[in-house]
């Protein structure tokens, strides 16, 4: 078991290295001149030449890669061409709001997706199942960006219940400074006991997280359903029933627990998707997170930023899968 975990970890590191190599060289096929971007539009040739040297673009690619790798190992991801700030620092400030969104939507995915899948499996081929299946497949079929627009239209413009975007009301932001302890605004405002802000922040979170949660909800529901169906047809479930164990217990304790392995991997997978879905949605909700950052970087072809985001996402994705794998390996109860 220890060996397995070490192996998994080493593999994770190797994959990460590979990811860095791939992204770096991918970035270099970009048909654009980073130096010119660095100095911005309407620059003179001298300015561009100076920037080329400053950015080390005159050196051979391998040397550049070595430098980059060295930087990465020290947490330095280079400077954004757009903002000229260290990418690592920017990511650090954009990541928490995104993580906050992801956690919240993953939470939604769990509390909505699992019961949905469970009921669907319980009532297989009945009306409820058809509804749940339609709902869960529908949820993964919706273009998130499109949903975002309509949610705004309904809840902000027509009903006026929820704010349009942003993380909190600007005026509140000017009034109260919330000390940053965790980096998560909602948590910070709750810790500092500021309910006005907490409420406002929560309200701002609803629309984006619901939008983003749609995909994982559908995914979790679908996977839970099929995992459960598979398990429910197993002999040991029939056996449990034959011992007179109540259907409710069979479903919730026996079957659900056994499907945990699948559900967990799926959840890890879906967080990866969620992360990327923020790229499409955050900009629409003016959410100051990684997604908005990426959208801006993509438009400006800010390649250090794109690589940075890619690395961070890939890193979290790998870590998530790793954790899921290790937990599954460690806990005999979810290993099947």
């Amino acid at each position, binding site marked *: 078991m220890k060996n397995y975990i070490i192996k998994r970890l080493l593999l994770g590191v190797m994959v990460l290295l590979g990811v860095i190599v791939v992204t770096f060289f991918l970035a270099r096929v970009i048909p654009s001149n980073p130096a010119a971007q660095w100095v911005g539009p309407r620059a003179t*040739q001298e300015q561009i030449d100076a920037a080329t040297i400053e950015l080390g673009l005159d050196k051979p690619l391998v040397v550049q890669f070595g430098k980059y790798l060295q930087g990465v190992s020290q947490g330095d991801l280079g400077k954004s061409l757009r903002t*000229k*700030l260290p990418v690592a620092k920017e990511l650090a400030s954009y990541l928490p709001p995104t993580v906050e969104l992801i956690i919240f939507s993953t939470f939604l995915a769990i509390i909505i997706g699992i019961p949905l899948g469970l009921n669907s499996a319980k009532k297989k081929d009945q009306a409820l199942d058809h509804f749940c299946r339609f709902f869960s497949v529908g949820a993964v079929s919706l273009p998130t960006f499109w949903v975002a627009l309509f949610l*705004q239209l309904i809840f902000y413009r027509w009903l006026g219940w929820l704010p349009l975007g942003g993380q909190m009301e600007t005026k509140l932001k000017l009034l109260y400074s919330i000390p940053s302890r965790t980096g998560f605004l909602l948590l910070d405002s709750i810790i500092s*006991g500021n309910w*006005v802000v907490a409420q406002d922040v929560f309200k701002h979170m609803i629309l984006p997280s619901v939008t983003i949660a749609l995909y994982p909800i559908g995914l979790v529901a679908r996977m839970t359903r099929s995992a459960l169906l598979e398990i429910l047809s197993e002999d040991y479930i029939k056996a449990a029933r034959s011992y007179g164990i109540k259907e409710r217990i069979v479903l919730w304790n026996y079957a659900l627990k056994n499907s945990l392995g699948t559900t967990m991997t799926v959840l890890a997978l879906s967080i990866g998707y969620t992360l990327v879905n923020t790229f499409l949605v955050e900009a629409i909700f003016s959410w100051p997170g990684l997604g*908005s950052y990426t959208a801006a970087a993509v*438009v400006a072809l800010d390649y250090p930023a794109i690589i940075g985001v890619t690395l961070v996402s890939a890193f979290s994705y790998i870590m998530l899968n790793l954790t899921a794998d290790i937990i599954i390996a460690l806990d005999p109860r979810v290993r099947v």
Partner: protein
Amino acid sequence: GCGGGGQQTGDEIPVSEIDIAYYAYNSEPILNWDPSAMFSNGIIVLNNVYETLLKFDPTTSEFENVLAESYEVSEDGMTWTFKLRQGIKFHDGTDFTAEDVKFSIERTLELGQGASYIWDAVSEINIIDNYTVEFKTSYPAPIDLVASSPYASFIMSKDAVEGNSDTWFEEGNEAGTGPYALEGYTMGDEVILSQFADYWKGWDGEHFEKILIKKVAETSSRRQMIEKGDATITMELPSEDVDILKDSDGVQVFIESSFTNMIGFFNTQKAPFDNENIRKALSYAFPYEDVVKYAAGGYAEQSTGPVPNNHWGHSDDLFQYSYDLDMAKQLLEAEGIKEGDLNILLTYMSGDEAEKKASELYKAELSKIGVNLEIRAMPWETQWEMAMSENPEDRQDIFIMYWWPDISNPYSWLYPLYRSEESPLFNLAYYSNPEFDNMIDSAYEKSSTDINQATEEFISAQEVLIDDAPSFYIYDKQVAWITDKNLRGFESNPSYPWVVFFYDIYLEK
């Protein structure tokens, strides 16, 4: 600690009572805090934090004295003397003196970034006394215009800049004299400014306490915010929205002229666009009226030459291409080009609705005469990079872009866009005509002393240009500001694109 948090909740101020102006801007408010180097959107922030010696009002062609009390120019137009206002304080508390002016401009020149080249004519800067500076130039140049430029002309505190590290600006600091001081910001997202108590004009009368400039990229969001009263000012809404908002009671709409115009450049180094007649044919095929009406939503005017119609140096008498498909077809046929022969690649900056619509309308017209236009939206940098390709064959055939001046002088169009250059930067048509070059150089020198003569010369240079047809002039843009219906004191100055001078405006209660 936790006490701080509790305290803040203690004295609750009703949210509505904060006097804040919220400018919902379509892009990053600022990406570079260095006033010497900043050469893009950042003017909307820096013009409220820093000040320049002068400010130019193109509608009256007059200068407003800001940091300067008065100024003089010598006969030959090569010595400019500015008397400075006294008793002005920088945000760091130091006094504003001639030292700071000399330091600021020299720093800008030294760094050589951004729009620093506008000061190229300056050969030396002399401090006459504490409140008098003298600019000597190597050739006659309109230093008053230069000193009022929205870029590269900001005056910063020498003490603050010298007293801090090289990366002080990068870290998000400022050293201006402007009415508002930087309170906080999130790079690429928002900037918060607050009143600078010691501002030299004082704070009598009504003013906003705080300013929030925030990127709200979605047009629909900007519109919804201004309609709901969440934002105070916004801009760059689709013309359809402007049409509707104009008739709405909830907001005010200001349609203002601007110095921005849309131009399409031909790749004159690549066949068949090296042929003047082909370029002319393609200029005739462009549906100018439809584009003005539908791409710009009517908030524009068809251009006559590169210099916009409300700017000096413009003439309505210049030749104007008009939409004439038959003519276009004839010209093409005369050059032996048959239907289906010509495939053209046009690029524009991704995300720009008006350019997109214009291109699509153009495509529709061209396809009627058997010319296939491929439209490609590209990020500005890539589009520009493509135009800069060594090999003319690798460049796009038509490059559509906006241009606006660094200083209010026709030279600010004619020089960067059309003057011969070995490796052009913005002369993306690769236009080269020595006669034209001489004409504009001479005109520019005259503009510091004899504006009428300069105007005449600029116009005749444009005649030459239009005849060569290296580019076609689409329209001069008008801008629409949408503001809160109670906003007062708002004025738009086309020399300072999208800049709101927040000191001047207030909400009527």
